[in-house]
């Protein structure tokens, strides 16, 4: 488990420990700052260039030599054209809907399973847990052929079911949640059990409220994974009205061809939802990623 309280930690990182060395404000620190700035500019440049291109007219976007300020001024034409095609809002809805459902199902089933592995003594527990842990190393990408065959057999190709269901199993999440549940003092549950609460009640009223931070971390991780998943939605969905943003954008890319401004406008629109969410929940998302990224170490 990461004990770091990320943001607070970093802000005070220059705290007491570093004070004695006053020359830290010397050359080394200036150099470090310079490298940070160079890296930040490099990392922000692709965004900036995409935004600027999206605000040009197609003529200016394709004009040579390359300029940051277009001759014909900035315009929202590209956005208007992309939105008028009407598909992006539908794809955004599909992405939001499928990612939300995937997150809810994954968190619910994983938490229940993790609790069983952590607290309950039942036949087959070791076996099942071993299978779940072993499957963590299997990249879902390699299962596309048999999975697609299964979807054909179940008549789920080109449906929300086919889009959503195969994405709801992330064994690593069970592992992370179990490790967290293991740390919760069992006395808390025993007290409630003495009072006659059944397992589900104990889980719901005691374990879950204590686990809010880890549940949030897992949910964030699952949501981002689902939101950005490309290969599976690309395979299982052909119907334009069922596509998610990443898949829809791939079809748009070939349709727009050399319309650079519209390409960038579509990309920016597709990127926007998650970036806005990130700006609002920066702390939680950063903390959630560092927790789940380590597999809860």
């Amino acid at each position: 488990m990461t004990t770091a309280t990320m943001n607070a930690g970093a802000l005070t990182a220059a705290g007491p420990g570093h004070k004695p060395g006053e020359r830290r404000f010397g050359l080394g620190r200036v150099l470090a700052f310079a490298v940070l700035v160079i890296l930040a500019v490099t990392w922000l440049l692709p965004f900036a260039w995409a935004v600027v291109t999206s605000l040009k007219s197609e003529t200016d976007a394709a004009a040579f030599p390359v300029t940051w300020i277009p001759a014909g001024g900035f315009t929202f034409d590209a956005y208007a054209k992309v939105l008028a095609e009407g598909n992006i809002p539908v794809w955004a809805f599909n992405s939001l809907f499928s990612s939300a459902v995937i997150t809810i199902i994954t968190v619910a089933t994983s938490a229940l399973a993790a609790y069983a592995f952590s607290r309950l003594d039942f036949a087959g527990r070791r076996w099942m847990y071993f299978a779940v842990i072993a499957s963590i190393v299997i990249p879902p990408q390699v299962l596309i052929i048999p999975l697609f065959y299964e979807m054909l057999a179940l008549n789920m190709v080109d449906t929300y079911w086919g889009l959503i269901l195969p994405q709801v199993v992330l064994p690593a999440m069970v592992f992370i949640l179990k490790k967290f549940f293991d740390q919760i003092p069992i006395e808390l549950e025993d007290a409630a059990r003495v009072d006659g609460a059944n397992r589900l009640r104990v889980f719901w009223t005691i374990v879950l409220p204590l686990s809010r931070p880890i549940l949030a971390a897992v949910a964030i991780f699952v949501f981002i994974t689902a939101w950005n998943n490309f290969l599976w939605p690309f395979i299982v969905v052909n119907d334009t009205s069922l596509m998610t943003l990443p898949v829809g954008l791939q079809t748009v890319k070939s349709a727009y061809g050399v319309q650079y401004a519209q390409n960038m406008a579509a990309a920016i629109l597709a990127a926007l939802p998650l970036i806005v969410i990130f700006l609002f929940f920066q702390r939680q998302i950063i903390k959630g990623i560092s927790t789940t990224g380590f597999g809860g170490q």
Partner: protein
Amino acid sequence: MTTTAAPATPAAVGDTAPAGSSPPRRRRRDHLAGWAFLAPFAVVFLAFIVWPIVFGIYLSFTDRSLTGAGGDLIGFTNYAEAIADGDMWRSMGNTLWFTILSTVPLVLVALVMALLVNEGLPAQWLWRLSYFMPYLLASTVVSLFWIWLYNPQLGLINDALSTLGLQEVAWLQDPQVAMPAIVIATLWWTVGFNFLLYLAALQNIPEQQFEAAQIDGAGKWRQLFSITLPQLNQTTILILILQVLASLKVFDQIYQMTAGGPGGATRSAVQYIFEVGFTGYRFGYSAAITYVFFAIIIIVSLIQFRVTARRSA
């Protein structure tokens, strides 16, 4: 995550007291409760992980096609064909090449970013935001951005090169350059993830260690090499393992940026599996390639575990 783990109070009511009175009943109840809690997960786990693996093995011994035709058991024919298939080995080689090229910068750049940010310089939020934000983009968005940046005439990168008086580069069209170009885009896209992991680990190093070193007169570099980096050993091993696994399954950005070209120079293993199955309609053969690839992943993982186990021991 911090659990302010209340120290277990041994004096508290004997934790098995209620069950202790009737052990057999408790056991039976646990069986039922255990499987009831596990059931929802077990269903999706069996349906979407275990079953595809098992069925895939069966498929790999048949000549089944996407259209449903065929399906006779043909023994090891598919595997024999796979072993002689130059295109398959080339795609596996490309995947390994991508993994080697991408892993080193994805770990090193992340480490440098985290070390610098951890210095506690001003504008903390800005560093985190700029380094991590690309990780939130879908692969398609990343590909659109970079195809545009790499555009031979109108791209920002070649424009900068020619301004500096340097030779322009056919980034995605030159078979020698295409893979490194994809690696650069991938570095930009995903380095923020490793950066966050390093940053979290750095903040877990107890401050007292640095204070003690400072009192002993150790300078900044000395502290870096004798405290910080050794403390990050475990983290580095973990990041390496995660990174190699992530790089081996590369598909999205390559498929979108070069479609595997030019001339198959960037076609990855996953893309070859995809193409044999969905463009070539050969499900049985595609399944066989899947398991060859799977074997390679397991071999790479085992080598990694052996090497890292020795180093961390």
